[in-house]
């Protein structure tokens, strides 16, 4: 009987541990998913803050592809935001420069953060951004306008079947709280 009691306690503890572990697993899904997306390029998530290194020598290939640019603003974001070029024909391996036009229509300063998305999603691993307004938060004073530049190249290993790819930026307002904390971290650094 005592043995049985001990077993019961052991099983209860093990099972509770399993339940707690699964709760942890649910939260672990967040980074796991991010890694999974980055490896497979699901959603065309190209991480905004991630700066690609410029390779020393770039092989410029003969192959040309079309790249389309889209710009959207999130709800409540009082900015005008659109690509200066809606589409470009580029050669693989060639460094290109384009830009987005942004203007703050509001009567006070607003900070925005652009979130990129690439389609087809698996092309995101071949689209390298060297310089991008999406790497940092952008602050525009009331009525201020700006051309925000984007310097990129497309990997020559881009799968054969892709002839058109689309880069979309959704621009969201950064809540003031986060702006403050970010400024603070920047200052500390």
């Amino acid at each position, binding site marked *: 009987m005592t043995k049985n009691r001990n077993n019961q306690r052991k099983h209860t503890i093990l099972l509770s541990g399993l339940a707690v572990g699964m709760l942890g697993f649910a939260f672990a899904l967040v980074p796991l998913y991010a890694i999974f997306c980055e490896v497979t390029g699901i959603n065309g998530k190209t991480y905004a803050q991630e700066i690609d290194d410029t390779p020393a020598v770039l092989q410029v290939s003969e192959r040309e592809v079309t790249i389309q640019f*889209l710009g959207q603003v*999130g709800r409540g974001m009082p900015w005008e935001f659109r690509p200066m070029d809606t589409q470009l024909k580029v050669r693989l391996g060639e460094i290109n420069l384009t830009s987005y036009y942004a203007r703050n229509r*509001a009567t006070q300063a607003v900070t925005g953060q652009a979130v990129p998305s690439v389609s*087809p999603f698996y092309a995101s691993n071949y689209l390298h951004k060297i310089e991008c307004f999406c790497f940092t938060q952008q602050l525009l004073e009331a009525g201020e306008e700006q051309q925000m530049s984007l310097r990129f190249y497309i990997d020559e290993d881009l799968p054969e079947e*892709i002839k058109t790819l689309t880069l979309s930026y959704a621009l969201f307002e950064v809540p003031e709280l986060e702006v403050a904390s970010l400024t603070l971290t920047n200052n500390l650094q």
Partner: protein
Amino acid sequence: MISITTRFRLHRCLTFFALLGSSNMAFAAEMDMRAGVTDISQRILQLHHYSLAICVVIGLLVFGTMFYSIYAHRRSKHPKPATFHESFRVEVIWTTVPVLILIGLAIPATSALIDIEDNSDADLTVLITGSQWKWHYQYLEADLGYYSNMATPEEQINNFETKGRNYLLEVDRALVLPTDKKVRFLTTADDVIHSWWVPDFAVKQDAIPGYINEAWTRINTPGLYRGQCAELCGKDHAYMPIEVEVLAEEEFDQWIVDQRLAIELASGQAVADRAKTWTMAELIDIGQQVFLDHCATCHEADGSGQGSTYPALAGGEIPNGPMAAHINQVMNGAVDTEMQAWAPQLSDLELASVITYERNAFGNTTADIVQPITIFEAR
């Protein structure tokens, strides 16, 4: 809850019984998946029939055996039960045979899927943006875009009027596409997840805020095709239909030219609107219609709102507060609420008049007048 009880209208009950039985005889009820007008939609229909046939055959065999057993092995006919209860051989058979059938199903499904997911080599790209509760179409190559709203009047929905043939499936401006061209759809959303679905093309693609998704179609036959939002997206999920007008290639090219021309004309009209100083009565007149078309679904025709999600405008803080804040709210929407940005959707005159209307209707008495030029400057 209060709004529901107060909005419960007696006439609904009455029309309910009046209409009972007189339902829509004119419409033959469809029972099967639509064949559609693309090669893919027809392949999917074949796959559907093929898998259905397999299921029916298996079902007949299994249920046939079962009903035979129910009939022949009932106690009154078969009083002494057999005692067998295991057979390795039989178990192996009915594990492997289904696997073989499944392989037979997986092959056509896989080949169709590979073709569906091949988005390369498109002739034309349309960006589809879902927002509560309308679609926006942008022709990327032609630099042309517009909103598409449901056109069914509220009177039909509330049973005041006879429902039209295309009840809930009609829009003010349809998406126009050419035949025999590979059209690539990019889908995204402004607020919540929507899903763009036209059964005749067999295209159903979720529109996810912040991200873009891809799908494509190549339509064989000109005509009008209808669909609906397929992902629950809030209150008026049932009211965001899709209408696609498919034209022959030359007609489509002409249509694009016409649209460009229309934009020029409209901008000329906008210049004229700005130049004019409008009276209160004129603005309220236009504003009331704009309000009914776009705002009343949430804020109600009498401005009473629906709970805290859709605040009342009658006596409301914003329509009675500073004008600049009101203009800002209407033009840009409000973060984290269902109030969307109307600046891209409405003209200067429409915005000016609806704001004027809101500030001077439902018992609001600010006496403010907003002129189109004010809106233009705020853009």
